[in-house]
């Protein structure tokens, strides 16, 4: 199967129709949700935290971060900030009225937050894109180093990050993890279902200092031999329910909030409709 990174730059690959197709596919929703829960397990958050979502796309992970502990999000509800290079993906996130703040930004250009902003960071199926440079002045090494340096600085001491990504080969896996180590992180790679077509690679990163266990060996040792938890059980069998993000779903969510006395955005002809910001 060909890799999207080899076909087009990310902002062109994730255009309006691909972003919509991606977000409404129940298969993709399930896979991204499982990986988000897996990453959350490794982040080990016990109370509402400030989280960065790198390559947040249409907010599939973000919706989980915003959920409460009772609804299956450890330590939640968290407050998150997401950024993505695709305006179309962010447009879909806007339509769904996700709770996190969204930015149009390129992770390969850095992370524009002051030092120690975030308790944790998450990135699901995105950073393999950093191994491609779209212009001749730029390079994968430069992009990875700006990203990991910026990420390291933006996390508080003792903070953690988990990046699930799809390395093209072992060389790429090494390139990514060594860029993280060079930026100062303690880094470990965790593989679920290795050697199968469902293999998933997680780069687990820790920032030393602070009150949490900054020692990466501790984190990964803890995970060793842990079976992949079936987050599907926790989850949301949507049979018979409105499809998440559909107009009916948004209206239902608004009604629920209104009935709790919340001011919600006025329902307009744009609600649940195609949105794309023209920059």
């Amino acid at each position, binding site marked *: 199967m060909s890799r999207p990174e080899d076909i087009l730059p990310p902002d062109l690959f994730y255009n309006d129709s691909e972003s919509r197709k991606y977000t409404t596919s129940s298969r993709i929703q399930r896979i991204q949700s499982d990986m988000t829960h897996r990453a959350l397990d490794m982040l080990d958050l016990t*109370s*509402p*935290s*400030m989280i960065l979502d790198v390559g947040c796309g249409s907010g599939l992970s973000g919706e989980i971060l915003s959920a409460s502990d009772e609804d299956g999000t450890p330590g939640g*509800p*968290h*407050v998150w*900030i997401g*950024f993505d*290079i695709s305006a179309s993906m*962010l447009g879909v996130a*806007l339509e769904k009225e996700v*709770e996190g*703040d*969204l*930015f*149009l*930004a*390129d992770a390969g*250009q*850095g992370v*524009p*937050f*002051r030092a*120690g*902003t975030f*308790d944790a960071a998450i990135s699901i199926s995105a950073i393999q894109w950093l191994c491609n440079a779209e*212009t001749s*002045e*730029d390079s994968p090494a430069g992009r990875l180093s*700006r990203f990991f340096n910026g990420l390291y600085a933006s996390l*508080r001491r003792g903070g953690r990050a988990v990046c699930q990504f799809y390395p093209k080969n072992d060389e790429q896996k090494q390139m990514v993890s060594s860029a993280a180590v060079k930026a100062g992180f303690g880094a470990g790679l965790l593989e679920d279902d290795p050697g199968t077509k469902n293999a998933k690679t997680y780069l687990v990163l820790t920032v030393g200092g602070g009150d949490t266990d900054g020692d990466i060996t501790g984190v990964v040792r803890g995970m060793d031999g842990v079976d992949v938890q079936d987050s599907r059980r926790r989850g949301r069998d949507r049979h018979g329910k409105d499809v998440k993000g559909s107009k009916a779903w948004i209206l239902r969510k608004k009604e629920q*909030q209104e009935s709790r006395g*919340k*001011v*919600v*955005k006025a329902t307009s002809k744009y609600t649940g409709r195609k*949105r794309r*910001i023209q*920059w």
Partner: protein
Amino acid sequence: MKLLTLNFLTCAIKTCKGSPASFPLHPRDSELEIIETDINLPFLKNILPRLTWDAVRTISTELGLPELPATAPTREDLVEPSSTSEDDAEEVPTQVAKDLHRLLLETCVKEGKLVCGCCEHEYQVKEGVANFLLPGHLV
């Protein structure tokens, strides 16, 4: 974009890194909106010591919001004393916590721009989304 986020965002341009004037970014020509959410007291307690209070005050003033006290509230100021508990869920927010929630998590910049005080670069905000993509030579 929540005012909370403005308390952490800096200019992305390489030459502004570390320059005190590149934080906070200054909202210009902005249109604000209120988007209500449930108050999250444990989150407020968590984030409070990480706020740069002077920047919270500067931004409020620049947006024409009511003046804030010169010193930041403390964690104790956020919890009704009678409700202080080991269990976060038991704690009741004070008016100070509610006001902080309103200001930082419910007040949002919907349209406008954010301007760096160091290089004067303008970041556009549309529908609450800020554009931080930079031309290659500024990275």
